[in-house]
């Protein structure tokens, strides 16, 4: 449970991120399928959360744990890698991804250690999170609940039904993080189905809303540490889809593009030099 960041801790998290993002790109290449773009945009949010939350491989079933719901289940490859990085899984076990009978599918299921909910059909996670948070509050418990959704995902009305309930019950144990990469499968979110003014919308549902850079650990930790104002918290985390992939940043078609051999090699070089830079910087 890392709650406060010093510059050494930030460096460590950034190095983790570079490693995990490379491993994820490699995993997708080997599996022959995956949701590359949204994996990369969610990387830092996931790493920050798993560093911050009160949950680890030993406490993953304890009733005192914090809960995380990965509503954007298509970003399974980064989720699996982060779970492996934090000790919930063996990295090697991921090698079966994409082959027949693997315990790992293209979307996460709760057979996998650390996974709380079976997601993949978009628009479920926030409602599940609201239910968990409400149940905990009714029991006067202080566990925290975190939900990560996509931005394109927010066209599903179920999110807004859940948001209304979170507002009604003043769930000051619920943090809803939005991976705001401004892209979905068919293109820009603002062309496919405009979300703006997103902050105002969510605010009007009874949330305190913050906008941060979803790749800056200082900002992610700061917002996680902001106290609740007797209402749920929403975080619009602005991110880059395909973050770190040289040919793949901010390009809609990288939503589920599988990186080729050259692109994996390039990513390895780029992440290695990034790590050097972080160490020296």
């Amino acid at each position, binding site marked *: 449970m890392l709650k406060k960041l010093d510059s050494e801790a930030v460096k460590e998290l950034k190095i983790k991120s570079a490693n995990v993002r490379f491993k994820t790109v490699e995993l997708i290449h080997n599996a022959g399928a995956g949701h590359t773009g949204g994996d990369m945009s969610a990387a830092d949010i996931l790493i920050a959360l798993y560093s911050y939350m009160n949950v680890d491989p030993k406490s993953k079933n304890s009733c005192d744990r914090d809960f995380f719901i990965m509503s954007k289940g298509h970003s399974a490859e980064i989720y699996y890698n982060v779970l492996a990085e934090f000790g919930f899984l063996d990295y090697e076990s991921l090698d079966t991804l994409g082959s027949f009978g693997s315990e790992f599918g293209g979307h996460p299921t709760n057979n996998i250690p650390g996974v709380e909910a*079976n997601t993949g059909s978009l628009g479920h996670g926030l409602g599940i999170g609201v239910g968990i948070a409400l149940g905990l509050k009714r029991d006067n418990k202080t566990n925290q609940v975190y939900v990560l959704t996509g931005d394109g*995902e927010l066209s*599903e*009305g179920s999110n807004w039904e859940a948001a209304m309930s979170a507002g009604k019950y003043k769930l000051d144990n619920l943090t809803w993080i939005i991976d705001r990469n401004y892209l979905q499968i068919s293109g820009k979110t603002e062309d496919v189905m405009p979300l703006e003014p997103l902050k105002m919308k969510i605010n009007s549902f009874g949330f305190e809303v913050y906008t941060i850079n979803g790749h800056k650990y200082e900002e992610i930790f700061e917002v996680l540490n902001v106290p609740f104002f007797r209402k749920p918290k929403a975080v619009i985390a602005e991110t880059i889809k395909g973050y770190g992939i040289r040919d793949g940043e901010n390009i809609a078609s990288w939503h589920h593009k599988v990186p080729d051999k050259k692109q994996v090699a390039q990513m390895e070089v780029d992440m290695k030099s990034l790590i050097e830079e972080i160490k020296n910087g």
Partner: protein
Amino acid sequence: MGKQKLREVFSNKILEEAKKDSSIFVVCTDSRGSAMIGDFAEKLPKQFVEVGIAEQNAVSLASGLAHVGKKVYVVGPASFYSTRASEQIKVDVAYSNNNVKIIGISGGISYGNLGATHHSLQDIAFMRSVPNLDVIIPSDANQMRSIVDDLLRNEKPTYVRVGRGAVSTIYNQNETFEIGKSRVLRRGSDIAIFVCGQLLERALGVADLLKNKGYDATVIDVFTIKPIDKNTILQYSKMCGVGMTIEEHSIYGGLGGAIAEILIQENPIPLYIAGLPDRELPNGTDVEVFNAVGLTIQELTNKAITMIKHKKE
């Protein structure tokens, strides 16, 4: 025998027709790519509606468009339409009698290891229980084209499910099909095999293998689950005295259920229902999963022989 993706057959055909008829509309839910309908969106933007990832909204909105005279095709993953938007299909489309066709793509288990969230193995069960809704599971490209012709002519609320991958062409190019009539491909009196969708190819393989072993099977492509072709089903079940159904759906409530309902009331004969078992499926491609759950030509043939012997005893 060529192979074609039925979602592509649909998108080509609908674009061609919509150029001639401006009342044809296509509604998508961030599903343009998988529906292979990007061309339509570009060439006919006034007849295209994108609602984002919102299947329920897509179906209600489509019903509104139909209410003012549009011929509306909602195109997206069968899994999400048949479950998330099921109430909108029941109430806004079927019950309200709006001319909306739901084209469920990548149906059955064709999304493979994307898992149960992306499989549609309950859709036949639900859709066929909704009054005033036709349910069609095409098996090849030529049949698909003919069915789209039919869909364009009629005004009936309809659910059509196609798969993701390319399927073998079974029928001739200009063969025509009528909604409500099944198609008999083989005639034999030992067993009647009823099948729909991409498993038709395997059913024909079963008939061939049975032939090698000295048995004659009837194979009927029941591509219209509703309205179902009761006469043909009864005719051949009477001739054979034993039957088998093969489908890419839960063993409960699908084609097998539909056939069993007819047979039990009018011509009770032993019937083996082959489909996806009532449990979590292993991760894998559709072919890998079919093979793992006994939907292989060999295993289905063995079952068929057991059924035939059972009849003769």
